């Protein structure tokens, strides 16, 4: 099998146990290989200078800073790479921050390994993992700080995207939503990825408008 057809997975992880476990799982997959790994923010930044991976698993809490810096920088250095943030519980604050920084989703560290591999593969194919709580919070993020929440939500998200988010927040899985909306599960996952992307862009625009309002961008 040629190198190019492998899913190249890069890891930014300071916990050796988790790193080793994932590395072992990847080794078992015929179409995946560990591309590179870093254990600190500094190493992570250095890693981005090298050749791009397909999927980057990034931890947030690193000994020398936040993994989110690396996530943000990856959009510049590895624009083709899908970033998954690894968290313990899939807690929404971490995940939402990561999505706003450009992440494509997350994997849960204590989740079963088949699920983690499945998430990596999903991210590589342009899909995005999502949980009900995250769907809920993404919805509220789009509504937040805006003069007419419903109106803005309508302009920010397409009707389909909004439906998908609502269904996810009610506990339905991608295949179930696909059946209800008469589309493929892959389309549902792509919707989620697009929503994530919009959130990241929106967050960036918000940052810029806030900075403009506060006069940081004068001159």
């Amino acid at each position, binding site marked *: 099998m040629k190198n190019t057809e492998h899913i190249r997975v890069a890891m930014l992880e300071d916990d050796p146990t988790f790193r080793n476990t994932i590395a072992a799982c990847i080794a078992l997959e015929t179409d995946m290989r560990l591309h590179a790994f870093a254990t600190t923010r500094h190493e992570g930044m250095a890693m981005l200078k090298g050749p791009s991976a397909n999927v980057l698993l990034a931890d947030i809490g690193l000994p020398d800073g936040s993994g989110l810096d690396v996530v943000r920088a990856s959009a510049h250095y590895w624009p083709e790479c899908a970033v998954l943030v690894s968290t313990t519980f899939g807690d929404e604050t971490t995940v939402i921050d990561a999505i706003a920084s450009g992440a494509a989703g997350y994997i849960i560290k204590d989740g*079963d390994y088949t699920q983690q591999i499945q998430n990596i593969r999903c991210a590589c194919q342009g899909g995005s993992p999502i949980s009900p709580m995250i769907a809920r919070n993404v919805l509220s993020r789009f509504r937040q700080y805006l003069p007419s929440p419903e109106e803005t939500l309508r302009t920010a998200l397409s009707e389909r995207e909004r439906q998908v988010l609502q269904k996810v927040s009610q506990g339905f899985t991608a295949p179930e939503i696909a059946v209800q909306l008469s589309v493929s599960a892959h389309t549902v996952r792509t919707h989620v990825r697009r929503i994530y992307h919009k959130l990241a862009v929106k967050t960036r625009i918000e940052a810029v408008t806030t900075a403009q309002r506060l006069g940081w961008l004068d001159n």
Partner: protein
Amino acid sequence: MDLTIPAPDNVAPDGPAGNWQQVTLPHTSALRNGTLPDQNNAPVITSWYKFVVTPPDALNRHTSDLVFYLPRWKTEGRLALYQNGHLLWYSHGDLIWNSFNRPVMVELPFSGPSTLLLRMDTLPQRGAGITQAWVGQYNAVSWRYRTRLALQCTIPGILAVILLSMGIILFFVAFARPNSSLYLLFVFAALLYTVRILHFMGPLEPSIFPAAWFGWATINSMCWLIVVGWLFCCGLAEVEFPWLRHLLVWGMVICSVATSPVFQSSINIAALALSAYIFCFVLSIPTMPLLLLAMWKRRSRSGILLLFWNMLMFPVAVHDMLLADYKVSIDHLYLLPYVVPDLFLSCLYILCRRYIDALSIAEHANIQLETRLHAQEVALRNSYDKLRRVEQVEVLSAERQRLMRDMHDGLGSILTGAIHMTNNAAPHTLIAQTLNDCLSDLKLTVDSLEPVDADLLALLANLRFRLEPRLHAQGMILHWSVTPVPPMQWLTPSAALHILRILQEIVTNIIKHAQAQNISISTLVEPDDIIVRIEDDGLDFIPTQPTSLGRGLHNIHWRAKMLAATIAWHPRSPGTSFTLRLPIEQPSP
């Protein structure tokens, strides 16, 4: 001689024969003597004044231009003017309430040298007199006539109208506000003054209004005016003379009744006027120094001004009384119509001052009230903030305690169990299972803290997300058929944890004991309740006897009780259906 018979049209051109005397004008032809006229015995007195007119020849061309002008005359009777024995003019109206205060100007038809006769009839003992008289060209004399007319009739009338209109305004003020007796007194005074001033506008036509009642009103209005003015001063100074007040008011009531035409003739009423005036003045004079002292103490400059005008009334009133009694030259004007309005204006000034002061006090009070209200608002907000902070602290500490208890009872005990297992060299899988349980418990606790905004579905969705991997690992298929449910406002983190624990316990039981292939979680909305149903197709499980309940089931019952929820198991074939019935509104404790 009867005064009701009109003056004859023609008399002897030189007047009746008799002993003519040369007199200087103004002239009083008869003095008053005696209070009440003796109509039966004493005769009517008729005085004749003769004027010899010799105009310069140059005036002959303008025959109609010559006029006779008499500023004032006074008699309780009638006046008539003859030229060369022909009647030119005579006074109209009532004999007593005649046009005594109205200047007379009569055109002389014959412009050559002539003799003018002025005939004046007077009731016995009532006095009579005339002022200086002028004969001349209209242009030369008319300004005197006009001025005199304005001073004696027009201006007093205008002043009365002004005061009356003020009175009307103040009446409405007094009407709208209780305890405004001063305003009412002003209104009364204005009315009385208007009545009083009418007789200066004379003559009275007895066919329009009875002379007796007119006289009664004229005299009593003056007396009442004095009383009302005095009451106003007392009210303003806030000094009471109860004894004197009763005397004056009741005295005046008696006087008004006694002088009414029911008991007296018109002539007698006019004669009694002086006594009534004196009665009022004499009684009210001694209180003036006391009132002045009260005003001085109150530093009321306007009050002192008012008293000054009031006291000025006395000499003026004396002057007018003497004028009426022929003791002062008849050339003089009556002064009361000029002094009384000043008095009124002082009153009006005081009332306006009071009104303005009251307004500014009200404004000031409003500002003060606003300030106080603002201060209270701030205080209220502060105390509310404080209360809220205290409440928040309490909620936080209660939540912290709950979490601590929960961790101690749940996580703590499971972890302790795991440690014991490692010490006892328990099988590896058992320890792993225990630690997994521990992690599940921790996740559940974390999930219960997620803000779900009263949305039960969010809670269930998260539970599914947690359970799915385990079910998947067991090869079980989860059927998710939830429908939107109404918000449950009582869904606090602790309530959420109870629900999550109940449902997790049920699902865990199914995984462990039921050997089911399919598991279905659904929701159902009823008017008062939301029902969460978990169905499986495994072995029957109906806990019937409470004693047989394990620790987990005990927990489920206890948690359901805490939620005011009911739980039930029903057999299916195959499998079991579990229902958790949650009230939409939590019953108040």
